[in-house]
């Protein structure tokens, strides 16, 4: 099959970008989307042009490196699938595809389809962990964990940090990402001692980054390649409010930052 691609090209963060048109010919339906892009790039290089920069590593849908918009949908049309796992048999001859990077103020473009998602690391760094110094752990079976809790924690922990949720949200909110980590750790007995502190610190950092606020639209859940459920956001809100109530001074400190602010969309 033959396809027309319109791809966002932007040399670096400071220069302006634009859409460019490319042809992808003789595309084999068994190719992955990124393999199709590889072939386009090989041709560009041979013709003396610069290839399209896009991020990828595992190509198995687990590392969270890849991701861009295909015709306005984060990771493209197939539900629960990262772009590296999307195969060309879902497209047809003559399709015209518009490829753009994640658009969010918190994710500045580095080049073409590559954006900077460092804000996610900073949110985790603020409190998305359980403090358990190496060597201090009791026997792994010392504390039983009900299977349903472990399973629900695992559902939330499946997040790959790709950023599709932010890209899909009209407010460019990172609530699904942050809620997933707060839920994962908060559902386990090991995560209880730091539960309040974690919610306060992570939400505060989230607010310091340039993400918008969550207004319960649900687009994030629809595009999440790991199908993380929107419940994690309610869980985050509950944990945050409970913690803030317990620690009202923290609420006062954070208030300036939790005030409604301009949306995070670029």
């Amino acid at each position, binding site marked *: 099959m033959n396809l027309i691609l319109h791809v966002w090209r932007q040399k*670096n963060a400071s220069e302006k970008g634009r859409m460019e048109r490319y042809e992808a010919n003789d595309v*084999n339906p068994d*190719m*992955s989307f990124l*393999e*199709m892009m*590889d072939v386009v790039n090989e041709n560009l*290089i*041979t013709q003396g*042009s610069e*290839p399209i*920069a896009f991020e990828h*590593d*595992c*190509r*198995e*849908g*687990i*590392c*969270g*490196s890849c991701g861009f918009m295909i015709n306005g949908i984060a990771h493209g049309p197939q539900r629960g699938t990262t772009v590296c*796992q999307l*195969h060309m*048999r879902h497209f047809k001859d003559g399709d015209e595809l518009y490829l753009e990077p994640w658009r969010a103020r918190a994710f500045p473009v*580095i*080049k073409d389809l*590559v954006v900077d*998602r*460092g804000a*996610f*690391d900073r949110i985790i*760094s*603020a*409190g*998305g*962990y*359980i403090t*358990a110094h*190496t*060597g*201090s*752990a009791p*026997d*792994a*079976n010392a504390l*039983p*964990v009900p*299977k349903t809790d*472990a399973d629900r*924690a*695992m559902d939330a*922990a*499946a997040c*790959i*940090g790709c950023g599709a949720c932010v890209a899909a949200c009209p407010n460019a909110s990172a609530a699904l990402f942050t809620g997933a980590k707060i839920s*994962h*750790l908060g559902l*386990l007995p*090991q*995560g209880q001692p730091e539960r309040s502190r974690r919610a306060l610190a992570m939400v505060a950092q989230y607010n310091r980054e340039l993400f918008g606020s969550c207004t319960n639209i649900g687009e994030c859940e629809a595009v999440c390649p790991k199908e993380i459920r929107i419940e994690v956001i309610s869980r985050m809100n509950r944990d945050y409010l409970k913690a803030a109530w317990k620690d009202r001074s923290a609420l006062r400190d954070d208030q300036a930052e939790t005030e409604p602010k301009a949306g995070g969309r670029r």
Partner: protein
Amino acid sequence: MALDSRVPSGPIEQAWDRARFEMKLVNPANKRKYNVIVVGSGLAGGSAAATLGELGYNVKCFCFQDSPRRAHSIAAQGGINAAKNYQNDGDSIYRLFYDTVKGGDFRSREANVYRLAQISVHIIDQCVAQGVPFAREYGGFLANRSFGGAQVSRTFYARGQTGQQLLLGAYQALEAQVDAGRVKMFPRTEMLDLVVIDGRARGIVSRSLVTGKIETHVADAVILATGGYGNVFYLSTNAKGSNCTAIWRAHRRGAAFANPCFTQIHPTCIPVSGEYQSKLTLMSESLRNDGRIWVPRDPGDKRSPSQIPENERDYYLERRYPSFGNLVPRDVASRAAKAVCDEGRGVGETGLGVYLDFGDAIKRLGRHVIEERYGNLFEMYERITGDNPYVTPMRIFPAIHYTMGGLWVDYQLMSTIPGLFVLGEANFSDHGANRLGASALMQGLSDGYFVIPYTLGNYLASNKLDKVDAASPGFQAVTTDVEDRLKRLLSVRGKRTVASFHRELGRIMWDYCGMSRNAEGLEHAIGAIRNLREEYWRNVNVPGSEGDLNQQLESAGRVADFLELGELMCIDALHRNESCGGHFREEFQTEDGEALRDDAHYQYVAAWEYKGPNTSPELHREPLEFNYVHPAQRSYK
């Protein structure tokens, strides 16, 4: 070059205790004065950086991805071993030790393996405390499964995403240390060379993958945890970015490379579908617990699998290995698949595939049970191939998966360059000639959480290091080397893309240094790789410039290093006139086609010393002694 393994004397059960007692300690107040570089943020590097940060060292950690959470360890599916014996089914530290030495076909160091088995139990404790959501039973205790042919259930898992969950545990611990100011993280930063001053590793030269800026980093010790080099084959189950640059550059600066030809081929991967193929996808080995592997009895039988009657199918593993059947170790299963394809009985369009059939299991257990066990894997298979494995048997074929070889390290995980430590898949230490399933995650975390915190302290406390800084001539010289090399790559402006060279190298390696090898083929491959390397530096086309994000330049440097490593792998495979584990030399096999070891001549670690470009490397031997597990021919019949 002398190889001193520094294995403690005395009974193996007490070796690690004794070694730890004899090690010097760094005064807690002094730890923050030491600068330590950790290259790599996978299970090995991430756990090391986090733990060293906790202890108070001043750590810099590097990875080439945009976040440490994306290291290739994230992709591990199946599980992690530990000798917990929670299932009460006869496991013990000694049994895990025994299985690992035997599985490695008697080419690993006993003391290292024993320590690994001992530490395994602490790893699970540590991970649970961090919030790793391992699978559990209804009573709330941890679940286990048997994996990769083990006779006991010692594998812990988190659905099909064990590597992801373990890595997120290490990553979160690492980020906590970033927040505490003890670890500084350098994502999107690639180490391009090692700086050795007065015979000691004293820092690295790196390139920012965003701005192209070349930087030097000075340290008191350097830890490499940069993963395996399976991508020398171009097609492998490794992530696209996995590469050998860090260890290869260190090798060129004096670190011996051990057993480079020991590579593992995983039997259950999705077959290649076309020229454009960019990587291979592993289907978890756990599938072999219920799937039956077969090919048509007659060569050239092109009927669809459902039309081939039972008596015209050859369940060749069950036939050849009645007691282990479909669960024989990886190397045995892979070779058997190659053999039936060589006979013209392979399936699928290319003839390079065998069936993994769940028909019987579905009949016996019901579809829902199979769905519960393997649902996500079946989905992944269907996503990639478009076939529904509940109805049509899966097609699988072996693929390069793991590299047992790596930089040589002693018991303290130090390479032949003092002050350079190597952890995880990047070292050669624990798996001999073949790794057992679910043991790489265990080794990475053992090295990072529990070994290096001791051995690094011992090195720092026992050596008085001179002051060096980035202005030292040593740093200047390496920086110039790095810059010159990048300029050279960009200035060739030839006709072939980097990927086309990489693909060609991969094909040479797969054909001559892959699942089975012979002297003639290896000699041919060495010549072919030399020619390809020569052409590379004359005819490669690397577009763009060095001053910004340039993915072609990144991969050009990596492929240049693979073109050197590939040759060393063939040299090593050619010198080892025996078959062992993943290294199968056609000239050395038993009458019924099994690997034939030669313990009298090859019971050693082959550690190669770099002697300069286009000069033969020098072989050093570390003899191996087996005082506990006595070498025997592995039999899975």
